[in-house]
């Protein structure tokens, strides 16, 4: 494609040596922090990534194939294969570091590199989640110290707790949980479950019927009549369920809008917890994490917290999330980012699971920002 990629600053730029040196230095520091070096193949089976991310991953990753192994992807990140490797034969607890190239299609951002070095640090530890979160965040903050960055933090676990504790049907909660990472569909579901969206005429007609429906249309395709009927039953049951109460909805909306420094955010969310008491355990975990971060020297008084942070771009994170952004360069992706992904280990672990937290740095951006300063 003849798209101009002028001004592209990646590993192929003339600062390649500096970027590699920075990556090597980061990895040595992560080893010094207790991590074991791991490597994973460049080519990853596409199935795992497609199962996890859905079709969206095709817009981000390069796909290739051969007749024997089928579709494979040039690794778009390390986290998934590192988790798989750990679940297969990792000892506990474990700390891993890696440094290598990842590949991303950049059709929407041609100025961004489509291959670049990533250095990561991942902690698999059952003992003390708050301490592990704080360890990762403090270690990353140390690596980017001196750069003009803004730290963003959040906690997907609080929103998940809020949804799971809603006073509504299990099916509705499951539907909302499934779309935690897709804010628009989440919003649409919430409006529907709260009775804010008018029921379309065709749906009204369907709901007025009873029993098995034998439509005039011929049976067609792999989605069988029984499946259609099961969903019709589910729709009828849902129509009978009362809407989500106004006070719960308002509290949930207030929660999603929280954006403050950590101490004020906690204060606001404790107020919201009067209407959503189910988030209190998650807030206790945030308290413990904040204390652990403070103990490691993080300036939590001035640290930003956004309750909705990480909902759009970090699909497997389900607890603490963080990112470091160049303040003067909103066009750049985060210089570093990470979070907790307990559910991912469950999904990839084939029956096993282990709490895990980690993150990655983009050394080429660090070098770029350093050079801009000099």
């Amino acid at each position, binding site marked *: 494609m003849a798209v101009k990629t002028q001004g592209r600053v990646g590993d192929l730029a003339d600062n390649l040596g500096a970027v590699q040196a920075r990556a090597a230095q980061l990895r040595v520091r992560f080893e010094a922090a207790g991590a074991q070096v791991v490597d994973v193949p460049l080519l990853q089976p596409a199935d795992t990534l497609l199962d996890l991310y859905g079709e969206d991953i095709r817009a981000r990753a390069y796909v290739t194939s051969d007749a024997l192994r089928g579709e494979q992807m040039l690794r778009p990140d390390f986290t998934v294969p590192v988790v798989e490797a750990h679940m297969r034969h990792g000892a506990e607890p474990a700390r891993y570091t890696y440094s290598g190239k990842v590949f991303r299609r950049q059709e929407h951002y041609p100025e961004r590199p489509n291959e670049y070095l990533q250095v990561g640090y991942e902690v698999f530890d059952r003992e003390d989640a708050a301490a592990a979160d704080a360890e990762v965040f403090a270690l990353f903050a140390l690596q980017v110290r001196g750069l003009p960055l803004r730290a963003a933090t959040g906690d997907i676990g609080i929103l998940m707790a809020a949804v799971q504790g809603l006073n509504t049907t299990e099916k509705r909660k499951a539907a909302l949980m499934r779309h935690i990472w897709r804010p628009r569909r989440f919003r649409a579901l919430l409006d529907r479950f709260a009775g804010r969206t008018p029921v379309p005429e065709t*749906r009204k007609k369907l709901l007025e019927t009873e029993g098995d429906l034998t*439509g005039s249309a*011929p049976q067609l*395709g792999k989605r069988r009549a029984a499946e259609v009927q099961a969903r019709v039953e589910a729709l009828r049951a849902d129509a009978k369920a009362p809407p989500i109460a106004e006070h719960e909805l308002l509290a949930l909306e207030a929660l999603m809008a929280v954006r403050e420094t950590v101490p004020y955010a906690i204060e606001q969310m404790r107020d919201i917890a009067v209407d959503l008491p189910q988030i209190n355990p998650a807030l206790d975990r945030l308290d413990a994490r904040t204390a652990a971060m403070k103990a490691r020297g993080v300036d939590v008084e001035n640290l930003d917290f956004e309750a909705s942070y990480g909902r759009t771009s970090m699909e497997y994170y389900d607890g603490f999330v963080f990112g470091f952004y160049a303040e003067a360069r909103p066009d750049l992706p985060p210089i570093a980012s990470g979070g907790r992904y307990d559910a991912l280990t469950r999904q990839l672990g084939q029956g096993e699971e282990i709490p895990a937290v980690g993150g990655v740095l983009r050394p080429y951006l660090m070098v770029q920002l350093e050079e801009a300063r000099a």
Partner: protein
Amino acid sequence: MTLKLGVPSKGRLMEKTFDWFAKRGVTLSRTGSDREYAGAVEGVSNMELVLLSAGEIPRELAAGRIHLGVTGTDLVQEKLPRFEQQVEELAELGFGHADLVLAVPQCWIDVDTLDDLDAAASAFRAQHGHRLRIATKYHRLVREFLTDAGVADYQLVDSQGATEGTVKNETAEMVADITSTGETLRANHLKLLADGLVLKSQATLWRSRVAKYGTEDKAALNTLLDLLEARK
């Protein structure tokens, strides 16, 4: 140098394009035998006609090998990422109307909207162990549309022709395809989703932002633009 205009080489699209230009004082014609893809232009000097497959025109515009091209909005948006940066729309030609739509079997009485589709896809995946398959040749457009709508648990399967038949053959559960009247969809017992219109397309004249324009090309382009303007 000459200003190169790419036009679909076959069928009604070519004839209607010729008619459209003729009404504006530009005569396009095929030269030589019917099998030869060469053409002639009268009415604008230093302009050349290049006959191409409609599907290749977006790529040729993006590569700058042609300056102007007639092809559907659907093909431009499917084949060119950030198409606005690579091509400029000069005129809609008023024919070749086609909508890219999502269609499901009529027997899915529980599915009328994207919201329904998403819920059905979730249940389908749980039941069958694979994501709900949508047959299409418009991968980018459909994927971006569904991502934007927040629909999950689907997969796109490639279908370059007879797409409506994939449901009957059980190689896909539904389709995303081009339709002008919906006739073929109905004949195959499929129905449209109420909010499943991905794109409205018609034959459109595009200008490449990438191609190089010499003095003579610019003069030819201005002559052509004046002729088009006079008929607006």
